């Protein structure tokens, strides 16, 4: 089963390696990982998408907590949260398909951020499923290149995780 975990860590060199090394060293799976500083510049927030049964997830959470540089681990599974990912897609845009690409982009509320006579670069934000759907629809036109940020999440409601509580 897929799990999305947020990890608040000390914003110091080597922390990413500690987390990534923990996953590889213990055979845990990482589907995606994104990281950037939080509002408190001494803390970074990682969003990790991983998978495994309950026992593995429990180990992942505990092992992460065991790292000295990890301040807080939040497993969003079963909780109410907002999940967003961004992607940029470079699509072939031949004479006959240009209009179709733009139509699809419009439907997905994506936008074109770079145009050439032979390609569009499309930017899209949304839940990973939405991006998957857009990629599927654009595929027949010919996707030249695709980059995805990996999802980031925040819990719904007023409660906030800042690492200082």
């Amino acid at each position, binding site marked *: 089963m897929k799990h999305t975990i947020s990890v608040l860590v000390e914003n110091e060199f080597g922390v990413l390696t500690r987390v990534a090394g923990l996953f590889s060293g213990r055979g845990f799976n990482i589907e995606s990982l994104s990281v950037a500083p939080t509002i408190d510049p001494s803390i970074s927030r990682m969003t990790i998408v991983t998978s495994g049964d309950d026992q593995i997830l429990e180990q992942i959470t505990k092992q992460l907590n*065991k790292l*000295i540089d990890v301040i807080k681990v939040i497993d969003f599974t079963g909780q109410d949260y907002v999940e967003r990912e961004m992607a940029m897609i470079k699509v072939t845009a031949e004479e006959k398909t240009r209009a179709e690409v733009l139509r699809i982009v419009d439907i997905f509320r994506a936008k074109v951020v770079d145009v050439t006579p032979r390609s569009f670069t499309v930017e899209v934000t949304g839940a990973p499923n939405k991006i998957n759907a857009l990629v599927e629809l654009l595929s027949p036109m010919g996707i030249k290149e695709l980059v995805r940020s990996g999802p980031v999440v925040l819990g719904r409601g007023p409660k906030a995780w800042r690492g200082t509580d």
Partner: protein
Amino acid sequence: MKKTGSKILLECLKLEGVDTIFGYPGGTVINIYDDLMDSPIRHILTRHEQAAVHAADGYARATGKVGVAIATSGPGATNTVTGIATAYMDSTPLVIITGQVPTPLIGNDAFQEADIIGITRPITKHNYLVKDVRDLARIIKQAFYIARTGRPGPVLIDLPKDVQIDTTTFAYPEKVEIRGYKPTYSGNLRQVEKAVRMILDARKPVIYVGGGASLTDASDELKEFAEKIQAPVTTTLMGMASFPRKHPLSLGMLGMHGTFYANMAVTNSDLLIAVGARFDDRVTGKAATFAPHAKIIHIDIDPTSIKKNVRVDLPIVGDLKDVLKKMIQKLGNSEEKLSETVQETSFWREEVAGWKSQHPMSYKSSESEIKPQFVIEKIRELTADDAIITTEVGQHQMWTAQFFDFMRPRTFLTSGGLGTMGFGLPGALGAQSAFPDRQVIDISGDGSFQMNSQELATLVQYRLPVKIAILNNNFLGMVRQWQQLFFNRRYSQTCMELPIDFVKLAEAYGATGLRASTPGEVEDVIRKGLETPGPVIMEFKVSREENVMPMVPAGAGLNEMVLAS
């Protein structure tokens, strides 16, 4: 007044109460070694950096204090790796200082540069690269704190040469504040109450003790707890000395080379109380059939140990001493029910006693050949209860666990988790340097001994009277045993074909060498060895193809023991 990084380091060590460090000098630690000449801290020069870390480890295991080792950058640092991994697997509190090339050169493949932070990341509890001398005192304070608190472990500080030379105003922080590190010491009372109810309802309880009992010095609480509930006690290799082997409730070691009765008791138990143990594969055998009828209570300070390898019915995270004290107290509130339980479990103790008399630990004695088990028994007979025994890894280690009746905590120092051949001699060196007046004996095999035999020089130089008993079978015995049992006696590369004259080797270093070749000589050699001042090698030419029995074959369940080969 401003101080250099290297002076700050030594000042901090002093403030942490460090009296002895083990190490080896080199280019990037030369400043520290220069300042060491003016420091009250005793430095012991080992002959290899790996041995320096093992010695610090032995020192820490024997005393309970944090062990400190120091090495230069590059090869000095990489040589510490096995020592660090050994300490990590057995949760020994260590601080390892490595020199590093000057910060502007880091990453340039400079002379004697190695990314020791990267290399030791998975085998340290935490590690630090000090980039600014103003961080040094805080980092050292944190390193000692992290090493000795929670589940202890080794912490490495990589100290570039320029940071040792840079100066700053020195102030040692009084408090440690690490927001991501707050180990749980106090066991949850509700969980303790649940555990007590489970204990009162159990009819076939067994206590299973790991290395945590020794790390927290909880032997007294453990004994009181076991006696109160009258449950048989089995220990892992690491837990061995925490419960007196001659106690009527003692079952000795469980697992692959455990006693028949310990393994039978665990397999038939209805409640297993795991105390500071981590259900290692050498303990459980096939995890799926481990203690199949038992509910499991698991007490450990490290939450990751819980439910890692086996299912657990009741976890209690906390310091063992604290949790055991609370359990004893809660049990005290139910004296009536407890005495009822103790009465109703008497049939269980009888059943266990039955297994004990059915298959006690034994071996076939011999008039013509020296049996290794006989040597262990004799050493036990002739040493004090507070003698510190170290071992290397292999058959001699298992025989020591099986036949040496340990009675006091912190008297058995052995590499359990990593299984490091070559630990015993430097480990004994470290223990002896902490306790110059106690008997310290390294029980070794001829293979393991040669992995760090250079430390004989250190023993002689520092007049550390460690006694080394080599059970010499001219084989890498444990691997040979597996080849005999599972590879059709194809002894691939396990015969140490060159016979070493260990007596002469001892003499070459200025130590004493003694040899026993027949059973009749064994006692005399041990007596003489123990009486001789200074380091002594006692070589015993033991029967070559003796096996460690009983044995649970790898992947089998504990009840599928082979009793004799």
